[in-house]
């Protein structure tokens, strides 16, 4: 009912502040060090699964033997391939999750997600334009094109949403939708005119770890590292920023600098991830929510937890994508959309997103 009063304003307000906890139904928090240790274990388990499972299931002993250098040669080759894929997955997942954390923290906006704010469409746009001009691009060139594109799109979204003030989540999301629509139209126009560009774009746009090679990884890695270092530097200042701009300024925090550096870090991470694996939806949205529910509001604990859980979620999704339609495989972007979107729907239903 439209007029139904919220059950308890106090609880609701608290839930709004910690949406992750609202979703977990008030789970008791783990001590952060224990949570981190569990996260490491989770990542290791997921990595092992990722090496072991594919279009054909291999026995775990076989995989362990190959890892130890004693298995059959064929097996070793398969494992090599899967290892590279797993490493790219870990890096992309971790980058997206941290990027989401930064954007959510900076905008005090639980819906902050690189994709919703235009990073993805900006990166897509830049990559398509470069592909159209140059014929074809390697992963490395794509990354170089994607990063300024993503930064420009984020700036544009903020410019469009600025007149609305910072009171509500919806303007940013709508502005993101507007920018995405316009850039998407141009992208569609380009790819439909050029069959070759269309052919590479249609695989890339779903988001997949299949095409990732060593070259992509080496070109993307410096950008990822730069973004990560910047993120680690900024994270403690985000705690002060969470108190509100006025309080942060009165505590001596350089608010503008923090916000600029944080957004730059978020855009670098997301752009690098998008360049490596295509636009992968919702990892950057869902993981920071979960992490907030587990380790609480302190950004210094959130950052490593996001690294671990983001990596684990993406690699796990990739495993699911490989296994679910054997002997074919899905793209990982399809799986994350179907894992992440219900999460967002649940958040909307609980009122954790809109009723602030």
């Amino acid at each position: 009912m439209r007029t139904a009063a919220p059950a308890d304003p106090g609880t609701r307000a608290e839930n709004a502040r910690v949406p992750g906890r609202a979703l977990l139904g008030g789970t008791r928090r783990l001590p952060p060090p224990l949570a981190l240790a569990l996260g490491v274990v989770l990542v290791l388990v997921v990595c092992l699964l990722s090496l072991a499972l594919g279009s054909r299931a291999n026995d775990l002993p076989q995989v362990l033997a190959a890892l130890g250098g004693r298995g059959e040669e064929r097996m070793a080759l398969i494992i090599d391939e899967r290892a590279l894929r797993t490493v790219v997955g870990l890096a992309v997942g971790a980058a997206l999750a941290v990027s989401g954390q930064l954007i959510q923290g900076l905008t005090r906006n639980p819906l902050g997600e690189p994709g919703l704010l235009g990073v993805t469409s900006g990166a897509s746009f830049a990559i398509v334009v470069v592909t159209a001009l140059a014929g074809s691009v390697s992963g490395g060139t794509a990354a170089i094109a994607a990063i300024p594109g993503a930064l420009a799109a984020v700036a544009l979204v903020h410019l469009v949403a600025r007149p609305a003030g910072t009171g509500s989540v919806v303007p940013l999301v709508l502005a993101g939708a507007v920018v995405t629509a316009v850039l998407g139209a141009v992208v569609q126009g380009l790819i439909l005119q050029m069959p070759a560009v269309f052919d590479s774009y249609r695989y890339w746009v779903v988001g997949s770890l299949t095409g990732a090679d060593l070259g992509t990884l080496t070109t993307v890695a410096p950008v990822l590292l730069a973004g990560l270092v910047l993120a680690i530097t900024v994270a403690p200042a985000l705690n002060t920023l969470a108190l509100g701009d006025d309080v942060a300024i009165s505590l001596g925090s350089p608010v503008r600098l923090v916000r600029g550096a944080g957004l730059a870090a978020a855009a670098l991470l997301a752009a690098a991830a998008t360049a490596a694996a295509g636009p992968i939806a919702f990892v950057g949205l869902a993981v920071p929510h979960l992490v907030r529910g587990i380790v609480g509001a302190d950004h210094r604990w959130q950052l490593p937890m996001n690294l671990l859980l983001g990596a684990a979620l993406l690699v796990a999704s990739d495993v699911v994508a490989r296994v679910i339609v054997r002997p074919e495989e899905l793209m990982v972007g399809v799986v994350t959309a179907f894992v992440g979107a219900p999460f967002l729907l649940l958040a909307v239903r609980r009122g954790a997103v809109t009723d602030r």
Partner: protein
Amino acid sequence: MSDSLRTRRHERQNLAEEQEQEQEQEQEQEQEQGQGRGQAQEQGHAARHGGGDRPDEVDRARGGDRPDRQAPQASLRGPLIGVVLVLLSIAAGVWTLARGELGVSPADALAVLTGNGDGPAEIVLTRMRGPRILVGAGAGAALGIAGTLFQSVTRNPLGSPDVIGLGAGAGAGLALTTLVSDGPGSAWVGALAGALVAIGLVYLATGRGFASPSRLIIAGIAVAAMALAVTQYVVAVVLRDEGSQLAGQLVGSLNSRSMQHVVMIAVALAVCAPLAALLRHQLLVMDMGDELADALGAGAVRTRTAAIILSVVLCAGAVAVAGPIAFVALAAPHIARGLVRSPGPHLMISALVGALALLVSDLAVQAVPFLEGLPVGVVTAGLGGIYLGFLLIRTWRRTTA
């Protein structure tokens, strides 16, 4: 001021003495009631007859005069704009027919329609450009009506089947259907099923039905993301040419339409448009809020459900014949409201605006060199996105200023 009013009174005395008597009765009543004449109706009467010579009364009377004087203007303005829109749509259609090597001049077209045209003109008219124009006009009108219904019952000027994921859902349904079978009939079923699933998910996710606009939008974004993943997956796994064709269809295109498509959108319009017109009165009341709508007998929940079902069917119909064409459903009601400048859902004008917008956009992808050969959805998405951006900025400026 009061002199001119007196003159007017004298003129009207000559014209209608009965009214003057009425007015005198009113004045007597007023004297009895002292200041107690707050009702707009009385003010209207008083104003018309120039009642009241004291300056403050004159001012009040003039204030009450405005709605009365505007009403006839607005009622004339609507049909006038309608006629202009129809003429412009016809002009766009005729231009589309006439341009290029295969162009059919209006005279040839008339000859074909009256049954004595020559071969080439008949083929162009009945198999190529005729269906294209009719499908464009029909789909545009359907989207215009769908958007108006939706915005009206959600009381959300930005609510549209596009924004809340209905178009994306229909697109996913369409894409999945092409994996299974082809033919416009099954595409219709797939698009409708996809749209229904999407809107059902959004309904469930908001937790309070369609009442909260911000919840609606964000749930729509989530549902649209899932639908988009499905669509992109299908486009990526089919053969390249098939994928390219599907991608064009998924943006929304009027290329190579047949009379079958015309019949489909015509049936959808013929069923839904009269039903939407029947809802018009209830929609007008819905603007006042659910409680008042219920009190006035409009049945808020029933009206909303009916309007959204109609909106879904119309939108799915448009998707089935032309693909999920972006932003027409969102922009047409706004443009219609800006043109008519009176409250209430302007179903007819929105439909005409939608039809005209689609015809002109389609003309653009045929005639503008840079856009040539693109699906029409690319143009509407680009222009519509920019329009929505301006609309948002203007609204936000106004609300925060």
